[in-house]
């Protein structure tokens, strides 16, 4: 809108360089996944889907895909339920205590996955819980929970608390206010938070590495494939992982936008 902006020299070139730095490595992997030869040299020899075929028929890859999906879905559901309750709980504690509680909840975000994996393993061992996909899902909940809370808080913080008072004024009890007002106004963002948990869980390697039993997940398979030899089908598998991540990202962005639009419509009208 401002003339000031259009008069500046375009920062386009500079932005292009930064983006290239970020995306070229990824582009290379995607490119190799369609390579018809098995050597990892540029330029690629020809185009083929052979590595994808290899990935989708090899039981190592397909069972890893299935395991990753199970863990990610279970983790997303548990995180969404627990996180929603915690987020609403936080809006109802006194304003003096809230920032401290928030710090406690969000601090684990800065914990390295290594650390979480290590300590959860000790924990499961201590409690004599056998390692399985379920321990992975539980561990992932610990990992994704603060992220979900961050997303949920971002919407709850912006929702006018007077909606709650308004609903009370019109006769709604605490429970009815939650089900008839707060949930309908916030669900897109809560679902977006759930999707984020799904992606984080699907991509997670380190915690999984520690707390999984005999089974395997997508990142683990990629990792062990890397260690064995350079099998080009790994590029196809990684591209699939990338695709899941990217599509989830799109869904998250759309949902978050829906939620924001609904809020804006009210405040700006």
């Amino acid at each position: 809108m401002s003339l000031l902006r259009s008069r500046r020299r375009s920062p386009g070139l500079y932005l292009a360089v930064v983006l290239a730095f970020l995306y070229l490595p990824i582009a290379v992997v995607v490119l190799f996944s369609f390579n018809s030869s098995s050597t990892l040299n540029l330029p690629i020899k020809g185009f083929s889907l052979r590595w994808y075929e290899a990935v989708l028929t090899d039981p190592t890859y397909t069972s890893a895909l299935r395991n990753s999906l199970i863990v990610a879905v279970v983790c997303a559901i548990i995180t969404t339920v627990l996180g929603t309750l915690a987020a609403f709980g936080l809006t109802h504690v006194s304003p003096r205590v809230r920032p401290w509680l928030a710090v406690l909840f969000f601090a684990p975000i800065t914990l390295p996955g290594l650390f979480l994996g290590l300590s959860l393993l000790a924990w499961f061992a201590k409690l004599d819980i056998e390692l399985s996909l379920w321990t992975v899902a539980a561990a992932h909940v610990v990992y994704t929970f603060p992220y979900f809370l961050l997303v949920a808080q971002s919407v709850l913080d912006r929702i006018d608390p007077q909606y709650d008072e308004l609903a009370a004024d019109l006769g709604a009890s605490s429970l009815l206010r939650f089900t008839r007002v707060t949930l309908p106004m916030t669900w897109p963002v809560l679902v977006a938070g759930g999707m984020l948990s799904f992606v984080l869980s699907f991509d997670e390697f380190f915690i999984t590495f520690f707390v999984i039993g005999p089974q395997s997940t997508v990142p683990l398979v990629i990792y062990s494939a890397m260690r064995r030899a350079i099998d080009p089908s790994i590029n196809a598998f990684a591209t699939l992982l990338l695709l899941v991540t990217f599509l989830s990202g799109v869904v998250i962005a759309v949902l978050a936008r829906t939620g924001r639009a609904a809020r804006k419509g009210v405040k700006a009208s």
Partner: protein
Amino acid sequence: MNTVLSLTGISKSFGKVPILHGVDLDVHEGEILSLLGPSGCGKTTILRIIGGFERPDRGRVVLAGKDITDVPPHRRPVNIVFQRYLLFPHLSVFDNVAFGLRIDKVGKRDIERRVREALELVGLEDLADRRATQLSGGQSQRISLARALVKRPQVLLLDEPLSALDQKVRISMQAELRRIHRETGTTFVYVTHDQQEAMSLSNRVVVMNAGRIEQIGTPADVYHRSATKFVSGFVGDANLVAVEALDSAGDGTEVKVVETGQRLRLRQTLPQREAVLVVRPELLRLSATGDDGLSGTISDIAFLGSAVQFHVDLDGMTLRVQEPAGAAPLTLGVGDVVRVVLPDHPVHVLTD
């Protein structure tokens, strides 16, 4: 007149900040009572105490003979219209208005009828199917009103409902509120910081300052017979002139203006030797000639449309004089020497 709502000895602090100091207030059935005052005076807190959103530290709230001090908001037969246009964004206009009735499990047919009636009352029966986010500010606020009124509250609380609207919409909504009040007969308790709004809407005005009530009276009372300096300054514009009685004869008094030393003849006797005259600018007149009134120099002129306002400097004291625009001696300019003439009826006087 029946008292429908009565507050006694209401005190409230937020943390260490005292907001209300023992407020007593009776609301009469069917009236529009305005709580008027500057921001922070506690008017909104009173409204929120009536609505049940705040609990008073001391004092009781009695509604229709029943003590409701400890009743939570969703069980009080009062409803509120907030300052912001808070419509539920996920519901249609119809569903917004029906919200309270659905909570109360009113029958489907009754809901349909009562919502239609409420929408008709606010003149928006055509918008029932719109989404709440597609309305203008004025329309949203009418829907908020319908949503509160459809529950047939014993008292309707209005918390500066017009202050977020444009000037033109605000004026037309004031007329609309007066009409809706006449048609429903509901008791309104109306909070505002806008004295023009309070005066044009209310049967009685409660002027508040710093957590206390300064005056309760009709709009004409608070405007023409202000109880305190604060009221006279907050409700409209007022010249405050401290005078000292010199000599009183018959129905008049010779006084000295304390700040300037000038002498002046009042058409009334003063209740005590020292007093403060409260003179509204539109009651004063300017005269270019004669020796009536007080002499001064015009220091500022502002055209107001229907009137012209002059600032007249009298040796360190400034009087504001408002002349009707038609009759205004527009030949006067800044720097001219004029005389300020008091009205020929008694003026309102404050004593300590």
